[in-house]
């Protein structure tokens, strides 16, 4: 129990540090950039304004205050779960992001399923047939997969499956069919890293003495592979997942734009284009939160997978 508490504690500290540093940097950048959010709003509203009106708006949004005051106001808001209001939509940022979150999580889940379905078989094939042709297939898949731009992969999939073969809808969401292409794109784009990692880990696990001992007990090859070797090799994959949850959230953005998927990615890209600062800052905060929470879950998963940690022992 003490371990669990200390895990939660250290992750919370990480969250606070991350949020403080990042939000301060973004505030600073906002202050020193030549662009002006008020002008951006006015441009959107497409009205001709006077300097006086501009000043009035500036005051209304608090942009005339010194940066430290603005910053501490924002921080005070966060503590009360208030991320401010969008400059463009005039809606609370938190509501906007929360409205988008389920779609993004759904897509991420779909991508993870595809990722698992691709990377485990290819990683296993590569390790079991090391140096033979299934290994070459697995390695080339990983290499090409790491080189292909994910939005282009999505475009190709749309082109073949939707336009040429007419099998799946192009864009939008709602049905399972809408779900397939974005999930495949995301899964394939993430797979190379996991294939390589699983392959390398599995190769070294298969040479370990406990696998030899299992063979000497006459266990079937498949059984040794699945129950003895694979399970031990999955631990680094889970670590990897914790580390790459951030890049998953980033990578999902492009795919959401490509497939017009109504997730957080679409929101943030709009926010950036319209220079809607509260939305951008809110987004960073939420992503940071998700990253930390995922890593905490990964920490806790270790306890389940590797019983040694529960005993407070060092992991070999």
């Amino acid at each position, binding site marked *: 129990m003490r371990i669990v508490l200390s895990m939660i504690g250290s992750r919370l500290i990480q969250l606070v540090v991350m949020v403080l540093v990042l939000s301060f940097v973004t505030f600073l950048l906002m202050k020193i950039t030549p662009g002006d959010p008020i002008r951006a709003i006015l441009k959107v509203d497409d009205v001709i304004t006077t300097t006086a009106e501009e000043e009035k708006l500036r005051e209304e949004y608090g942009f005339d205050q010194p940066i430290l005051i603005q910053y501490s106001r924002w921080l005070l808001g966060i503590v009360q779960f208030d991320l401010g209001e969008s400059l463009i939509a005039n809606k609370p940022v938190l509501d906007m992001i929360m409205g988008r979150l389920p779609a993004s999580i759904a897509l991420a889940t779909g991508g993870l399923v595809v990722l698992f379905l691709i990377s485990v078989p290819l990683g296993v094939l590569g390790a079991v047939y090391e140096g033979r042709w299934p290994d070459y297939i697995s390695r080339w898949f990983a*290499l090409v997969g790491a080189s*292909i731009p994910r939005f282009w992969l999505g475009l190709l999939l749309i082109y073949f499956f939707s336009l040429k073969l007419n099998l799946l809808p192009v864009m939008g969401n709602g049905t399972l069919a809408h779900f397939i292409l974005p999930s495949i794109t995301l899964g394939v784009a993430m797979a190379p890293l996991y294939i390589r990692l699983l392959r390398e880990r599995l190769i070294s696990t298969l040479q370990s003495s406990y696998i030899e001992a299992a063979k000497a007990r006459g266990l079937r090859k498949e059984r040794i592979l699945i129950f003895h070797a694979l399970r031990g090799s999955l631990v680094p994959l889970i670590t990897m997942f914790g580390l790459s949850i951030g890049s998953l959230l980033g990578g999902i953005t492009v795919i959401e734009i490509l497939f017009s998927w109504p997730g957080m990615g679409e929101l943030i890209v709009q926010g950036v284009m319209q220079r809607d600062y509260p939305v951008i800052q809110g987004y*960073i905060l939420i992503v940071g939160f998700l990253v930390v929470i995922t890593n905490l879950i990964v920490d806790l998963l270790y306890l389940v997978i590797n019983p040694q940690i529960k005993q407070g022992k060092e992991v070999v």
Partner: protein
Amino acid sequence: MEVTVIKKARLLHNPSMVFGMILTIFLAGIIFVGGAFVPYSPFEINMGNRLQGASSVHWFGTDQLGRDVFARMVYGAQLTIGLGVFAIVMALCIGVPIGLLSGYIGGKIDAFFMRMIDGVLAFPDFILAIAIAGMLGPSLTNLIIAIVLVRWIVYARVVRGLVLAEKEKEYVLVSKVSYSSTFKTIRMHLLPQVMPDIIVMAAIDIGKVILLISAFSYIGLGAQPPIPEWGAMLNDGRAYFQVVPSLMIYPGLAIMLTVLCCNLLGDGLKSYFDIRKGRDYL
């Protein structure tokens, strides 16, 4: 002499390296002499000549504004690859010296600094770039600034880690004890040790940066039209893919080959350095 011969032979015996070199030569050819074959400007609009297929005049056809796709591809190669290399070189120039110094001198400031960095680095490139580009405003220049701002931290951290491991080894201690200057110790002993890892990282990162730039341009936060960056070209021609698929095929293929080239070179160099350092090559 014999030893060097064996090493050289190994560098070219590595299939990744060979493929990577072939691609590099091919891409370098396009960047440096490709322009000679293009009589058109990549920006010249000719509405009377829109969406043409490939012909002896327009090798890759023309786009929705009648611009020569081949000319745009060649210009795009110079731009995309040039920017990728530029961003990484800039990040290296800032990150490596700071990492070397920070690791070599150490102390509390170093430790505090690194903790902050660890917190920030839990964030992926993409989100940080979005944050910075979002604050500075979407443009290709701001995107490059964002990339350099994020990347130098990564290099500083890696180099610092390598230095910390290397610093305790005897030859560095000897150099320190023999009253060599800090600068000389770093330059003579530490830099050569960390270079191989940095070169491998940089090769792979150029590919990553090119992917990032093209993705940003595709979603409209990077290069803006009419700049013929490959990702921006894909964004530009989105509406016409069904009619002229080649508008989609060429830029995407170009990005893929370029990044593949970087990954192959990175892999090849890694196993080359691993063998040379006598590490086990997995």
